[in-house]
C-alpha cells in the first residue's frame, strides 16, 4: 500500500511533463489501445476532414493523465477516474500532466482524496480536465 496518504493535505499536487509528442507516440497507442481511427495516423484522411495533420487520441492523453493518481497513490488506489476532452493534442506538443488534492475526507473510516486533474500544453491550452477519487485498497478488502 502506498503511504502517500500520510500527511496529505488539500492543495498538495503532483505533476510531470511529456515533451514533444510524436506521430510515433500516436501509432504506439493505436497498437497498445486498439484505436485505429485513421484520423490519428493517416495524413491524407486528416486533410480530407479539413485538419492540418493527424491528432492524438483522447484516450492516449487520458491514459497518460491516469498515471498521476497511479504514480502518486499506487495503481490499486483508484476508486474513480473521469476525463472530459477539451482540445486536441497535436504532434510536437509538450504537455504538463497534473493533479491537485481538492478534498480530503473519511468514508467508512477510510481516508479518501478527491483530485482535480489536468493536461495542459506549452501554449496553456487545456487538453483534458479530469477527476479521480483515491483511497487505500488492500487485497483482503
Amino acid at each position, binding site marked *: 500500500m502506498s503511504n502517500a496518504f500520510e500527511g496529505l493535505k488539500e492543495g498538495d499536487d503532483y505533476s510531470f511533463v*511529456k515533451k514533444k509528442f510524436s506521430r510515433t507516440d500516436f501509432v504506439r497507442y493505436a497498437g497498445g489501445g486498439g484505436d*485505429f481511427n485513421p484520423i490519428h495516423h493517416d495524413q491524407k484522411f486528416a486533410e480530407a476532414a479539413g485538419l492540418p495533420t493527424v491528432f492524438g487520441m483522447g484516450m*492516449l492523453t487520458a491514459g497518460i493523465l491516469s498515471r498521476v493518481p*497511479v504514480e502518486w497513490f499506487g*495503481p490499486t488506489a483508484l476508486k474513480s477516474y473521469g476525463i472530459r476532452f477539451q482540445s486536441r493534442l497535436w504532434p510536437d506538443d509538450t504537455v504538463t500532466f497534473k493533479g491537485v488534492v481538492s478534498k480530503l475526507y473519511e468514508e467508512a473510516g477510510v481516508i479518501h482524496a478527491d483530485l482535480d486533474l489536468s493536461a495542459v500544453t506549452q501554449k496553456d491550452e487545456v487538453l483534458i480536465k479530469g477527476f479521480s477519487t483515491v483511497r487505500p485498497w488492500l487485497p483482503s478488502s
Partner: protein
Amino acid sequence: MAHINPPGLPIERGKIHEFANSIGAEEPLFHDEEAAKAAGLPSVVAPPTYTSTQAFFSEKDAPNMFKELGLDLRYVLHGGQEYYYERPIFAGDTLIAEPGETIASTKEGKRGGSMKIFDMYTNYKNQDGELVLRVKNTLLQTAGVVKE
C-alpha cells in the same frame, strides 16, 4: 475486416505490458509479476483506462458502430470517459462487457453548430459474475469540423 472474437475480454500480462508502455507508464505493478505477488496481489494490475483495449474484442469494429448510431466518422469526437472501479482488475481475469443504455441528446455549440451527444454506459463483470467496473463513454458529433 473479419475477426474472430473469444468470449469476454481476457486480461493478459503481455497486453497490459504493451498498453502500459503505450502510455509511458513505468509502474512496476503493471509490468512485473514478481513485484505484484510481493505486494500481495494475484498478478499485475490493469492500468485505469485499460478496458479501452476492448476494441480488440468487440463484435463490431468502430466504423460499423458509428454507422449504426448514424455518426459520420470524420466529425466524431470523443467527449469524455468516466470509470468507477469496484476493485482493481488483474491479469488472469476475464471480463464480460454488458452494454447499458445509450442516452442521446443535442446541444447548441459555440463553434461547430449543433452537437449530438451520446452517453454510452457499459458494466464490466469478472469471471465470477462480480461487477468490477462501470464505464460511461461520451461521443460527440459536431455539425462540421471544429476549427481551433
